[in-house]
């Protein structure tokens, strides 16, 4: 079984790129299954269902979506195995840029939209810097020079990655991506995360809604950068 974790900024075209890539995988005789994780609502499962492959939706609701993805990884792999799949494609909600929900034994793909400008790769963090493949989308909306500058910025923060220029409308890049996925690593048990998540529980997690500083506990950081621990 192979595991692909697809993350990226909201609206970057993850689902469209994935739809084209799945078609390519199926044409190559692979048996992909998709798990789409979102926070509150999604109808992407209907887009995937048209491809006639196993689809599963997970809504994280009150749980952190990345934690939800990680917590349910074994479940996803088991489900895909039952469905006779050989590749699990996990599309994450991709909201918090502090985390990266990539285990070590997956193929980690980060989808990023070129029209957000060449400073974006510097802001995205581990989602981008620990990915194996960076897929750039919407390149048809900018000049070649701008695409090349964007690419250079991606390589600045993740020098070892492969970059695929994709287009969610035409399917450009899907062929290449499907080949890379077919050659991706096999999953074993005892996976570990590539990047450490943020410093744990805070008072918002436990239901605090009052804004005033005196009500907050946990590992806290002031706007001037000073960090402290408040609590028991």
């Amino acid at each position, binding site marked *: 079984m192979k595991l692909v974790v697809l993350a990226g900024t909201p609206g970057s075209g993850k689902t469209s790129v994935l739809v084209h890539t799945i078609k390519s995988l199926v044409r190559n005789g692979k048996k992909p299954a998709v798990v789409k994780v979102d926070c509150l609502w999604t109808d992407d499962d209907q887009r995937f269902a048209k491809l006639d492959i196993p689809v599963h939706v997970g809504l994280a609701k009150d749980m952190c979506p990345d934690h939800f993805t990680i917590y349910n990884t074994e479940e996803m792999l088991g489900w895909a195995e039952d469905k006779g799949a050989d590749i699990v494609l996990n599309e994450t909600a991709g909201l918090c840029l502090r985390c990266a929900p990539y285990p070590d034994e997956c193929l980690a793909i980060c989808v990023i939209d070129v029209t957000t400008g060449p400073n974006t790769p510097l802001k995205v963090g581990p989602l981008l810097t620990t990915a194996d493949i960076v897929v750039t989308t919407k390149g048809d909306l900018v*000049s070649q020079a701008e695409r090349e*500058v964007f690419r250079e910025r991606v390589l600045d923060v993740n020098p070892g990655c492969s970059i695929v*220029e994709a287009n969610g409308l035409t399917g450009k890049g899907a062929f290449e991506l499907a080949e890379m996925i077919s050659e991706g690593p096999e999953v074993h048990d005892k996976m570990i995360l590539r990047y450490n998540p943020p410093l744990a529980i805070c008072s918002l997690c436990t239901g605090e809604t009052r804004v005033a500083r005196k009500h907050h506990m946990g590992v806290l950081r002031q706007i001037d950068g000073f960090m402290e621990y408040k609590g028991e």
Partner: protein
Amino acid sequence: MNEELTLTILGGVDKDGVPEPVSSLDICKGEIIGIVGPTGSGKSTLIDDIEQLAQGDTPTGRSVLINGERPDAVIRVDPRKKLVAQLSQKMHFLADMTVRDFLQMHARSRGKGPELVDRVIELANTLTGEPISADHYLTVLSGGQSRSLMTADIAVISDSPVVLIDEIENAGIKKQEALQLLSGEGKIVVVVTHDPVLALMASRRIVIRNGGMVDIITTSSSEQDVCGRIAEVDNWLMSLRETIRKGEVVEELA
């Protein structure tokens, strides 16, 4: 850069999935070739196939060969090795950077030094009205200024043996100068155009209909004569445009 350079386009399918009538086309070093056809017919799609050196992996199913062979993956993606420079129809930059920072970064992506920045700006300013400065933000440049900068950037920084140009006549810049600047010595130039002067300046033109290449027309000597005559008319129109732009009064016809 290779001494010999031939670009071969192997035909794919049109918008209905029917094989296109032109199944193979060779373009040699030094040639300017036009792409003509109604708007929406698929001219830019052909340009895009060439830009990414399609290998049957685009919606048209076309393949592009270099010197008769399938290009390496590295040539397709790494800007340092790229053979193709493209001036697209895009009239604006989206990057929130100064002209200097952007050009420095682009020079770096193409494996070149920052000393080229001033040359790009100088050249761009020969094609446009209000001068561009290195400290301007890209996002405040006008359509004409952006297009001039993109043109000069291709001539100086990208400087690839194959240049693709998409509808330069709509750019609000001096189109014949721009074409001269981009074509350079011994380059392959592919130009999408609705403009009779530019179309007839090419030695051949590919006719596109419904997404497919339907014909290749070689520019005849009488067409070349026509080209010379309309170029005169065109230059006259251009000079009138300049006169009006400068706020001057148009003299009566002599």
